[in-house]
């Protein structure tokens, strides 16, 4: 578990509506020098989903939990419990685990500041960050929390991350469009690789190759 302190577990909705926010979080985590992990990366069909999630939580020191999507699902008309459940798992690991597992740290994101109290009042007293469904706000919140929790001085400035994210988004959209690639259906790992490459390319050269 040598990379334990670099790994960030992302527990958030994976629907199309949340995709922009999800991608902004992935970008921020990578730009801050961490590795985003989430249940979308599983390919091993033999393992149960829950087992995979537990394994992933064990590997990650940090956790980002967005509980903003608790509304009824459009198709099933039922509420989604995955995010609160995974948040509970993460919290349980920290409380009942041993060794470095106990050093886990997480941030809880919500749409509005005190809304959570109405559906998950157990979290009262815990600092929850609101993003108002804004990519800029979610980038700022995630960056500031990672900087504080990790105490790393290498975490870039929030404005710089946001500026880079906008540039990346534009470049990536154009590039994918030119190659007739469906940007919305790109697998999670492939997407992270594109971000890592983009960040590497644009940090090592004076003039960005993408204009």
């Amino acid at each position, binding site marked *: 578990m040598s*990379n334990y302190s*670099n790994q960030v577990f992302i527990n958030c909705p994976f629907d199309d509506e949340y995709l922009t926010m999800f991608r902004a979080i992935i970008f921020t985590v*990578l*730009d*801050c*020098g*961490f*590795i*985003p*992990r989430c249940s979308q*990366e599983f390919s091993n069909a033999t393992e149960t989903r829950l087992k995979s999630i537990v394994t992933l939580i064990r590997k990650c020191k940090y956790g980002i939990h967005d509980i903003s999507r608790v509304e009824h699902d459009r198709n099933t008309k039922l509420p989604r419990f995955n995010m609160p459940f995974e948040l509970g798992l993460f919290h349980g690991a920290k409380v009942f685990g041993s060794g470095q597992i106990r050093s886990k740290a997480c941030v809880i994101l919500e749409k509005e500041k005190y809304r959570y109290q109405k559906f998950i009042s157990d979290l009262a007293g815990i600092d929850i960050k609101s993003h108002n469904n804004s990519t800029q706000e979610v980038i700022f919140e995630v960056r500031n929390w990672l900087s504080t929790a990790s105490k*790393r*001085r*290498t*975490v*870039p*400035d929030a404005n*710089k991350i946001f500026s880079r994210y906008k540039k990346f988004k534009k*470049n*990536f959209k154009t*590039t*994918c469009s*030119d*190659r007739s*690639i469906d940007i919305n259906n790109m697998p999670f*790992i*492939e997407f*992270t*690789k*594109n*971000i*890592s*490459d*983009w*960040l*590497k*390319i644009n*940090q090592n050269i004076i003039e960005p*190759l*993408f204009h």
Partner: protein
Amino acid sequence: MESEKRKVKYHPNVHFQEDSIILKEAILSAFKEFKKKSRSLEKATKAIEEIAEETRPSKTFLKYIDEIEKLPKPSEKATKAIEEIVEAARSSKTFLKYLDEIKKLPKPSEKATKAIEEIAEETRPSKTFLKYLDEIKKLYEPSEEATKAAIEEIAEAARFSKVFLKHLKNIKDLPKPSEKTVEDIEKLAELNKSSKKEILKNINAYIENSKFLNETLLRADQLKQIIEEHRNE
């Protein structure tokens, strides 16, 4: 504030065998940029080469100049001696012809150089020679008539000297300027119209400073020796 750069990391399950779309695009973009720069560089290089071709001497010319510069310059003594001899032998048609021949000669071959060295060894100024030189000088001074007589005597002596004729033959046997040399000089003149003065200056320097003058000196010295020998007979 960013106090130092963070290290960008990759997801542990990333397949590095396959390039990402971003990387492919970056490579393509860099390639296009390189191609664009390369094209403009090619244009600039061509233009520079054209200018250089027009304005600077060709490689052959530079090589030729280098060779000219390497040639030994005649010493003061040698120049003086040549002047004396030319002055003395002005009326001798054979001597003038001989001088003309020398001037026409290309760079001496190894064989010729060796022959010249041998001659020089043979004709190294002896006490008698120096004495003879003094006598010649004295001859110039008294009267025009005496000078004329002395010159005639030298010319006559040279004309019948077997040794002189032998060496004259040697000189004649030396290779004539090759067609290529002539062609090179013509080419140089053509190529360097703009620096014609410079070429002429260097060609003059070549003629003035070349080994041929030293050969002249050696041969002239030899001639004197022959004359002396002839006199003593």
